[in-house]
């Protein structure tokens, strides 16, 4: 029997729990220790130490300390408080900086700065009125938190970090399509978009039906919003049903039709003999789809697309999601709503939206596993569409639930297919009220988290990976999530000039591994999209609140398992004994090897 190899890490360290209001991404890397603050290679101090600044901690009250700012972060450490309160905030998470109080302010700690962050917290600092310390700090923060608005470069381009692995090689589209068994007799790989001429927001390599000519593709592109034609995302290895993604058809008020588009969709349908009707999932609510006709968009009409059925999934647009998250922040930060927690939570609709996205993805996955092909689109096919296809793929294909596979999934469905990260997150941009900003990607990660909760042994990665991804979604330390699409990334030479998040993550794989991952042979995992099972991701959304003990169950289980399995030292003794006796079992040998290698206890089964 083949040995199932999975790696287990029991991180016995409790270093994180020491900090009360502390940045969660705990970067214990080769940081240069400079003046008691670890700096990243390429990180430079842009402002000296400011003494006599007061951090108004919403949980422990005002704390006096020192602050200093680099081109990457804002660092605060308290003086005369034990244990020290530290803040380590990458400037990228700052969404807004404001002065509070004026010269006439009287109240205690009423004069200072108010910083709104993208990661569910606000920071307030009180300063002395004398001198120009506030103006200085404000100007520096404003400049370096929003470098693009000031003609500066994002930190990712300044970073000098080096890692063993090059994370940019994690995703190779041809390799990934080959893994899926493509090209085959029905689907071909096309380089038609090599110069982003067909569609400037799509990747260069696309998979299209074999029987559709390049000319057909060009014609279809004219009828799809921004030329985002239906292309293949995933193919079922057995029944050959496919998930294809695209943008809305340009039907408009007059109800235009396009023969090429209609024929193209029928070609897609015909690639799979079992599909008598192609299912088109329009992620939007019906009314929104109708409203889009006014601006030239629309949906596939019944008459025009005879062999297709259209299903609306009722997922709302970016504005609704943004407002929902705003409401959620209101009830969890700084204090958790006490008297009517549940009804307040309900009124944010955040989990309701999660439910809709998940149940949409379930429907997509269900169609595919019953053997019929689907087309997924929303308006432009880069927000809701990415959520639906990637979640459905996560349910259908266990590869995407592995540590590597998940990275590939993000690179493929989100990054390469042009989810507008730059616009949705607003990297380095001072315009905090930009209507293009929206937590679509966060919502997706939340859905993934919900799945990991429901299937605690099905994912090779753990919650820390999800949190790290979200932290670096904002941090601007890595190039991975910068820019809106591949063409923009190419133009800015992102792969050349920045480090990939995966270089960082993969250099510390052990920290992000779920010790309870079990390779399962069940192919499809359907989460339950009922409010009974959906819960608020407390360890992300409320992580800044020390009162809510970080009840990361897995963390608990890990630490308790360490107890159960015996202390590290005991194990080392065991391993020593084992080796002295020259154990022959392969299993045992790997057990030894791993035991010796890590400071942390590693068990290899």
């Amino acid at each position, binding site marked *: 029997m083949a040995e199932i190899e999975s790696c287990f890490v029991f991180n016995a360290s409790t270093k994180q729990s020491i900090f009360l209001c502390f940045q969660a991404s705990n970067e214990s890397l080769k940081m240069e220790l400079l003046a008691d603050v670890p700096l990243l290679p390429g990180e430079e101090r842009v402002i000296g130490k400011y003494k006599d600044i007061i951090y108004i901690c919403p949980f422990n009250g005002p704390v006096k300390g020192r602050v200093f700012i680099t081109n990457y972060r804002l660092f605060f450490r308290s003086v005369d408080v034990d244990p020290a309160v530290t803040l380590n905030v990458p400037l990228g998470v700052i969404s807004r900086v404001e002065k509070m109080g004026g010269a006439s302010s009287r109240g205690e700690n009423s004069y200072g700065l108010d910083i709104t962050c993208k990661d569910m917290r606000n920071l307030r600092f009180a300063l002395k009125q004398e001198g120009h310390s506030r103006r200085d700090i404000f100007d520096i923060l404003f400049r370096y938190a929003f470098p693009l608005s000031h003609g500066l470069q994002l930190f990712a381009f300044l970073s000098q970090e080096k890692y063993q692995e090059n994370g940019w090689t994690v995703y190779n589209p041809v390799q990934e399509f080959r893994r899926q068994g493509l090209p085959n007799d029905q689907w071909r790989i096309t380089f038609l978009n090599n110069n982003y001429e067909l569609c400037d927001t799509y990747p260069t390599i696309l998979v299209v039906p074999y029987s559709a000519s390049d000319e057909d593709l060009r014609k279809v592109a004219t009828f799809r919003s921004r030329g985002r034609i239906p292309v293949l995302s995933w193919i079922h290895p057995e029944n050959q049903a496919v998930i294809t993604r695209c943008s809305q058809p340009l039907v408009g008020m007059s109800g235009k039709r396009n023969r090429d588009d209609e024929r193209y969709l029928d070609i897609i349908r015909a690639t799979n003999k079992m599909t008598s009707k192609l299912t088109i999932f329009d992620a939007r609510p019906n009314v929104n789809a109708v409203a889009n006709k006014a601006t030239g968009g629309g949906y596939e009409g019944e008459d025009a697309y005879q062999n297709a059925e259209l299903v609306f999934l009722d997922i709302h647009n970016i504005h609704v999601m943004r407002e929902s998250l705003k409401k959620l922040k209101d009830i969890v930060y700084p204090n958790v709503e006490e008297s009517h927690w549940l009804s307040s939570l309900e009124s944010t609709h955040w989990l309701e939206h999660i439910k809709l996205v998940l149940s949409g993805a379930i429907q997509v996955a269900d169609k595919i596993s019953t053997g019929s092909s689907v087309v997924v689109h929303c308006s432009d096919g880069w927000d809701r569409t990415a959520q639906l296809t990637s979640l459905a793929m996560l349910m259908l294909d266990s590869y995407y639930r592995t540590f590597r596979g998940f990275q590939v999934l993000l690179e493929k469905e989100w990054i390469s297919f042009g989810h507008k990260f730059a616009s949705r997150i607003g990297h380095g941009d001072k315009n905090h009220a930009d209507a293009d900003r929206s937590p679509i990607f966060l919502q997706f990660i939340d859905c993934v988290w919900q799945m990991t909760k429901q299937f605690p042994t099905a994912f090779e990665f753990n919650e820390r990976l999800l949190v790290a991804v979200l932290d670096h979604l904002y941090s601007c330390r890595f190039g991975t999530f910068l820019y809106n699409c591949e063409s923009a990334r190419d133009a800015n030479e992102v792969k050349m000039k920045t480090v990939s998040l995966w270089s960082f993550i993969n250099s510390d794989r052990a920290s992000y591994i779920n010790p309870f991952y079990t390779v399962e042979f069940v192919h499809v995992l359907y989460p339950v999209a009922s409010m009974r*099972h959906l819960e608020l991701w407390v360890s992300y959304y409320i992580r800044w609140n020390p009162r809510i003990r970080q009840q990361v169950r897995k963390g608990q289980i890990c630490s308790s398992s360490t107890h159960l399995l015996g202390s590290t030292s005991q194990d080392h003794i065991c391993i020593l004994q084992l080796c002295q006796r020259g154990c022959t079992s392969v299993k045992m040998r790997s057990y030894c090897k791993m035991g010796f290698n890590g400071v942390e206890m590693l068990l290899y089964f």
Partner: protein
Amino acid sequence: MLSGGGGGSGGGGGGAGGGGGAGGGSGGGRSPKPSFVSYVTPEEINLTEKEISRKEKQPDLLQGEVIFCSASPIRKCTQDDFSQRGIFGSLFCTNFRISFISDETQLEEEEGQVFKNKLYGENDIPLTCVDNIYRGFDEKKKLITSGSVRNKYPSKIIIHCKDLRVFQFSLAFAKEEDAKKIFQGIVHHCLEPKSLKCIFAFSYSEKMTFSSENQTKLKTVMFDSMVDWAQEMKRTKGNCKLVSANADFNISTKLPQFFIVPLAVSEEDFTQFQGKGIPIWCWSHHSGCALFKTASLPLMQEDGCSQSYRTYMERMLNAVAQNHLYSVKTEELPETLPTIQDIQQSYNKFKQFFLVDNTTEFWMSDVKWFSSLENSGWLDIIRQCLTKAVEVVECLENENTNVLIMEEEGSDLCCVISSLVQVMLDPHFRTLEGFQSLVQKEWVAGGHHFLDRCNYLHKDKELQSPVFLLFLECVWQLLQQYAPAFQFSETYLTVLSDSVDVSVFSTFLFNSPHHRATTIQPVSLLAQKGPLNLPTVWDWSVQFNSAAQDFFTNPLYVEKSRQDKVPRKTFRPKHQRHQSLPSTAFKSSPKKSFFKDETDSLKKMLRVKRISRWLNPTDLTQSTTREFYEAWQRKPLDYHGLLLPCVDGPALRVWAQRYLRWLPEVQIFGGGAMTLEKKLVDLLAEVRELRGKLDWHCSVDFSHRGAAALAGSSVRLSSAFPFFVSRTWSFKPAIPSCLQKNLITGTFADKEDEDSECLGVI
């Protein structure tokens, strides 16, 4: 007594093949081998023909179980059945249960049933487990109350069980008289008032001999002897007086035979108010202070008695105070906690969310789930109890004052709070045996009115209240917050909560030790044999085999390692006297404690004001309790030390295993907490094996409790495992059918074309 239904008596064992086939066919759609009969709808089958061909199956009766009536064919409608046609079979009503026996061969049932209850199967409903019966017509249902039944019978009955199962039986296919008989039988035995002796436990135990060796094997301390109490006091290093004067219930019928009081309580005090007002020792803190509970006296009455009440109460308070450092805090629990009626009402609302009749209804209710949950108030009641327990813990742990909790009977909320306090403070009560002993000590010996609260006899609905369940709920909250601290699992708590309604166990049958003693005694006199030997719920072998019992242990439990096992901290003198000056003790300081030499002033105080709340006003309580919690939270977590629950909104949750296990819509196939548990058990087994190989000299026990049951089984896990094993491993996902369409928040509906704006890049 045995009155088999008309159809029932005939069949016998003959014609197994043919009869079975036809029966299966009439089941419609679920027969493994479709025969020509399958295509005929049940209505078309001639009833008499059916009767002849049917092979009557009977439930496997327990000792002392007799069938009252039966009827067939009865259609059981199943929720997870896509065809919605159901299964045909016979329905029986015995003195123990309502039992449905399917006509189909139940091969599938055997496989994968690791967690089989020996007393009742998945199609059995113990009579005491029936919560409500409805008559179903069209898509509606109407509650059936006792006495409302005349000669009619509905074509469909819906039974809601106390363990949250829902059964739907269609009576339309049975002969009219059978249907009438079974319906009236069920209603009679489940809803009409009856006498205690009709409860199945009595017929059961007459026939069964529960060897006392079985009982002695149990490590659970039963608290029915002097020794048990003495040992408990010794274990906690308590310094109180063990009283045996009530051994024959001469002092009071409300008090247990043996109990412990402060040293200063004298013999005369016992008899004064029939045991009311006596501070009963619950548990001693290692500092020396202790927790007491009492059935409070009506102090406010202005009749002649009130004076003697007051002086008596003063003396009792004094006695408690003298136990340790002359400090006492008293708490009249009903003043700040919900009444038993509130608890009952709230739970009634709450449980409705899980008694779902069909999928449409389920998804309808899903939309407003959180606010409905909040409106039921159930989680809030749990929060209040946990908070109150934390307050008491604070007094014992932080201030080292004695605490006396009071309540009219001293056997409802007093039990909840005192046992919660002990679970939080004493790791012994977080072990399986310790927890069971705690239930014996505080609930069984403590005289919780199980019989009234469970309302087995259908007498007074006003007295019914799920107080014990509330306690289990609170423990579950602690368990899910600090899993490694508990030796028992969530499954154990769920099973325990189910066992309350099985009506076989002496544990839950009586209102007090006196009630138990008097009920058991006369039988023995008549029959001239030893007193009735009713099984206790703690003898789990009555319900489960050892493999199933493995699910009761929590694989996450961190046993205390040997070197950690330091003796309990001995008395730690804490000079508190100077802290609490009598002048401020009653007026402003929330921390009331007093000296012996202050008794005079105390007496004066008592005359004008009753000492009830120690912490007042409530804001102050909250803030100190919050500080206490936060201070505790800052310390590293010790699973063998004090545990305090987080009671913030996001921390309190719904006990998913208990409440969601029967709902097909929310089964997570291939997922759920059990998958994690299984993995952990597998890992542990493997580590043990490795260890065993490593260490030549030491013989390692390879089997681990919990490992055996899970590791070997190839059962498909789901979130409802082990309670519900789906036969139709459904690859069909549940797709929410009723999504809220009005999510659009105002202005954004028309802004759909967000994405159509110009792309900023390139």
